[in-house]
């Protein structure tokens, strides 16, 4: 699976408990209430484990996490820079 698919899979299975909403990579994860602050923390630890990449605190901001697409782009750039 590519990064985007891995993230989608995790969000659907682990974070969207009981919400049978279909999400697409460009969907706003936060505005729609799909992920709460606890979800963000879970997502960060998942990324750190799965991609073996430490996400600096200052990068855990709205711009990088508002959609799966944004997150995929962020990870691509951040991993390339690391």
């Amino acid at each position, binding site marked *: 699976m590519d990064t985007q698919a891995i993230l989608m899979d995790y969000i659907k299975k682990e974070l969207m*408990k*009981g919400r049978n909403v279909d999400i697409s990579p460009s969907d706003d994860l936060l505005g729609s209430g799909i992920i709460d602050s606890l979800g963000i923390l879970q997502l960060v630890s998942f990324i750190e484990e799965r991609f073996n990449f430490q996400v600096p*605190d*200052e990068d*855990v901001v709205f711009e990088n996490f508002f959609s799966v697409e944004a997150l995929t782009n962020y990870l691509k750039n951040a991993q390339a820079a690391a």
Partner: protein
Amino acid sequence: MVYLLHQAVDNAAEKFPENEAVRFSGRSLTYAELKQRTDRLAAVLIERGVSRGDRVGIYLKKSLESIVAIYGILKAGAAYVPLDPFAPTARLSFVLRDCDVHHLITTDDQMPFVVEMMEQGAELEHLIGVSSENAALAEAIAWEEVYATPVDSLPNVGTIEQDLAYILYTSGSTGDPKGIMHTHRSGLSFAQWAAETYGLQPEDRLSNHAPLHFDLSTFDIFAASLAGATTVVIPEPLTKFPASLSRLIESEKITVWYSVPFALIQMLLRGGIEQRDFSSLRWLLFAGEVFPTKHLRQLMSKLPNVKFSNLYGPTETNVCTYYHVETLPDTDEPIPIGIVCENAEALVVDADDQPVSRGEVGELLIRGPIVMRGYWAQPEKTERGFFKRKVFDYLEDIFYRTGDLVQQQEDGNFKYLGRKDHQIKTRGYRVELGEIETALVSYELVEEAAVYPIPDGQGSNLIEAAITVKNGADISIEQLEEHIAKRLPSYAMPANIIITDSFPRTSTGKINRRELQSQALAQTEGL
């Protein structure tokens, strides 16, 4: 004379017309603009049949319009009923039916959910903030139309301070949310106390972190307007990101911050506050839960020029005690909830409603103008919520029973010791465990359910549930979660649901939630 909440806006519009009243994502309204817009909204509401004492719903994500909606509704003589924009529609349609709402302020984006609520029996007749192509079921009035309605002067609708101003719905133990009714007087009493206690000035910029359906928001909005200060409304998505929040404090030059401890602890741990310029910040206020002393100590040492204050009060009393944190205990013992607010009286009673001697543990009762009117349409619950102290024949003092156990220290400050009942706090939200249990048991295959809090190590709780299954049926936790997600707000969703064969019981045969909780804790520690 200011005796109604919205008069604070008109007052500020006269004294400081060019001061920013509200900021949101780079946009703002001055007090002059806010007065004009709220007058126009009130005129539109009155023209659409809203009269004194009616309830008008607000179903909006945070925006400039959230504030316009609150004051516009109040100016029309009605009480506002804020709906959690992320809550399941079944819960919201219950609220709309419960307090008989026919006018809703919302947006086109929220319309699919509004339609669901109407299908579930909400009798909405007028939708404000909605364009006409969305108006199949009710009359739609777009904001452009509202703002284009000229108003010379609003009719005097005759509101007095004892009329209802807002109804906040909160978790109810029987499974349905209950509406806490506040009047202009109770809201204003708190706002005036707060503006004075924290010395709010027209130059101040207050954060609005809490959602509108959460009582912390009344400080951010009403106390700011009284002072002619600015309310900086924080978009919901940003509240999930500690680093975004700390950047907002810097860029918006927030002077007074108010939130649940959880938001501050997150900012302390992950917000990179060392790199931020917090020189504008003068007060940091928190309420809703206990701030763990360990974290508070770290935060205070990082922000030596900021003053800290712990506010306490169930939604029924707005805020009723406060504690300015000057020194911290050497141990990690929790800080007190402080002394009772000016113009409020505290009484501590034992299980037989007899006052305890100073220093003994008892339930905290509160009397004063900050106390709610009662629970909407629940006279028995309201009756049970109050304690009457006979003064003379035919004269009684009326106290609200907080359900919180306290102990007065020698220095006069109250210490909070816990709840009398099954209510818990999670991320600052209060949740009745019974409400979650009711939701779980409403699923066909669930026999019995017990819900209990698991401390998360950050001063708050996660919720865990244990269930027994009917006749050993094959149950899908995923489907069960889906079922309860339609009934509960997301903050009340259990983080974990476990299936068990039987529950530990107390000697009286009740489910022993404490035992379940210690089993769960032992398991976490064992990992």
